[in-house]
């Protein structure tokens, strides 16, 4: 049976002709400098067929992996694909994926006029029919609520306004399958907020929920610091940190006098440069605990600055076990708990370095 796996940009495949065969070739263009334009219209039948093929393929995949086809979820699909087609590419979007065709093919608009050329929607000639119809709908609801103003409701903000946000313009565009301008978007949001000030019922709440996205993925709770252990009665905590290519492991004791030993040497000897020592000082100074903790750490790899940064991160993480949650949040906002993602940029061919080009000679 045919089994479709797509690589992000629909190229022609030459892999394992018996197992994998890309059916559609509509996307591939032979023109050199023109990117594959996405405006080809996929017919509805085509999309339906794709969905069928996808479901069948999912069942095949489940069989291959030895799992139950009925309860094969999306994550299982992703895991199976990652297992069967391991890829060493760095760009996640360039790796093989198998998703529902709705997620892959962009939403198309059906033909909006009939055989006689007469448009179906009454607002077709505004150009943005779905947007304006939506505005009409919301305004209608507002008028309705204003006329039926009943007893004042107390539950204005008690629902999940706090943990959610409005859809952004791009998301709204995607939903309506139509281009919007900034002013349109602002107007729409204003209307919705006006709706929220009025006493509304559950139906309106349902309606508005469509346009809110939850933000309860609390970025605060990312850091989980390990609990401190005891040894000989001393409380300490260990953690690691990395920067560029240096790794450090720090053991911070809860009670001490502010001594720091790095790889067995005093930190003054290991880091003769003041800048590095300032980096080490930062977490303690921020929390005002300069002379209250003893630290022993080991570090390897990287250069002197990278090692200092790695130790700083490790110390900050280890310190989290001894301080209150608020202080952890402050540290996170100060950037002490974020690993620095900057790495050495790769040298490109045709250039002398990562950015430096070869000397340009006029002739």
């Amino acid at each position, binding site marked *: 049976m045919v089994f479709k796996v797509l690589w992000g940009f629909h190229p022609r495949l030459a892999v394992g002709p018996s197992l994998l065969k890309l059916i559609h070739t509509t996307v591939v263009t032979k023109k050199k400098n023109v990117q594959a334009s996405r405006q080809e219209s996929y017919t509805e039948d085509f999309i339906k067929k794709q969905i069928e093929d996808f479901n069948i393929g999912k069942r095949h995949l489940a069989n291959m992996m030895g799992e139950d086809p009925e309860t094969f979820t999306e994550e299982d699909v992703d895991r199976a694909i990652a297992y069967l087609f391991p890829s060493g590419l760095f760009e996640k979007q360039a790796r093989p994926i198998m998703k529902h065709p709705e997620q892959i093919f962009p939403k198309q608009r059906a033909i909006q006029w009939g055989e006689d050329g007469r448009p179906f929607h009454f607002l077709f000639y505004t150009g943005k029919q779905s947007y304006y119809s939506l505005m009409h709908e919301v305004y209608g609801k507002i008028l309705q609520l204003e006329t039926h103003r009943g007893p004042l409701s107390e539950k204005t903000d008690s629902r999940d306004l706090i943990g959610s946000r409005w859809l952004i313009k791009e998301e709204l565009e995607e939903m309506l399958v139509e281009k919007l301008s900034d002013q349109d978007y602002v107007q729409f949001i204003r209307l919705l907020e006006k709706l929220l000030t009025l006493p509304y019922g559950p139906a309106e709440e349902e309606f508005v929920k469509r346009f809110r996205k939850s933000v309860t993925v609390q970025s605060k709770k990312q850091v989980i610091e390990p609990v401190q252990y005891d040894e000989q009665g001393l409380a300490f905590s260990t953690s690691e940190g990395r920067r560029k290519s240096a790794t450090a492991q720090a053991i911070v004791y809860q009670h001490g006098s502010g001594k720091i030993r790095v790889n067995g040497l005093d930190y*003054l000897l290991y880091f003769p440069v003041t800048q590095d020592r300032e980096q080490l000082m930062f977490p303690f100074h921020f929390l005002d605990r300069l002379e209250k903790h003893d630290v022993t750490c080991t570090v390897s790899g990287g250069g002197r600055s990278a090692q200092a940064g790695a130790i700083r991160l490790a110390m900050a993480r280890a310190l989290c076990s001894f301080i209150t949650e608020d202080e952890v949040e402050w540290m996170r906002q100060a950037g002490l708990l974020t690993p620095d993602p900057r790495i050495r940029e790769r040298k490109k061919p045709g250039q002398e370095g990562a950015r430096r080009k070869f000397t340009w000679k006029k002739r």
Partner: protein
Amino acid sequence: MTAKTMLTGVTRLSSRIQKLDPRCFLHGSAQAAQSNPVPAEHPRVISRTSDSDPAKHGEQHEGKYYSIPIQDLKTVFPHGLPPRFRMQVKTFGEACLMVRKPALELLGYLKNTKFSHPAVRYLLYGEKGTGKTLSLCHAVHFCAKHDWLVLHIPDAHLWVKNCRELLQSTYNKQRFDQPLEASTWLKNFKTTNKHFLSQIKVQEKYVWNRRESTEKGSPLGEVVEQGITRVRNATDAVGIVLKELRNQSSTGLFHLLVAVDGVNALWGRSTLKREDRTLIAPEELALVHSLRKMVKNDWHGGAIVLSLSQTGSLFKSRTAYLPHELLGKEGFDALDPFLPILTSNYNPKEFESSFQYYLENNWLQHEKAATEEGKKELKFLSNCNPGQLERLCASL
């Protein structure tokens, strides 16, 4: 280096009541030996003491600064102080050294020297920036005050590197002369020990060249003059001076102190090259050769104080500070029976004192520097290392 004391100009804003009587530097050693000044504004930290005579420094003065009178500065230390300290002296207008344990220990030993026994060697060692050179200077000041003859070589490393002129020695064809270094040293030696030069008489006749010679019995000053005027013979003059002093110190006429800083240069390697670009070993340099003989403890009537130094050393790792590492096997064997004295970072009391001193002299201009947090920051960043602290404060 012990606490590099920053010197402000005379226009000091903060009134320091305890400095009312010792403000007059010109009195020199005739000051009253008051042990503890009256602390008017800072009852907790007393950073100064009014004793300027190192002989009277004892346990109770530990952690306090004493000032060296300016007269003494010119005579005792024409070349002895490290360059950063000299800049500080110039800025503040006064030279203040902190009294610290290693120096006190050394002074104690020096006070109890038995002049009939062979000279004892004291070796100051420690991490970089902990106070070796300034402790040495403290000892030199003490000896100078007590009328010893001081032979102070400020940095032996200067003799084994960056030498412009190397001449083949007239005395011994194998060795090399360094006229410039020798003549500068002779000049400074003359300033330090002027009064001795007329008293000590040479015991042999020295012929410099066909026309000049020094007769037996003439004062040592003549040899020194000869070395200064005739630069070509300067190295030989130095050799002669050292030999004479060594031979005559046992007579009891004077006490001899040999103070060499950076003594590991004598047994290390040098960067000097002959004309055919082969390296010269230190023993082929006449100055080094004579100095090595001086540092041997086969004479009596004085003491030898040495200090190691990694800063100017050649081909030695940055983290090396132990005698064994810096001197090498040869040097260690040559110096073998010696008394090691370790210098270390400040203890909290000394750090406080140093901090107060900088504050008093308005050296720390940063607004937050005077606060508790500022002090903690400085303590952390410098880890109570005197040299580091000085460098940090210099930029505040």
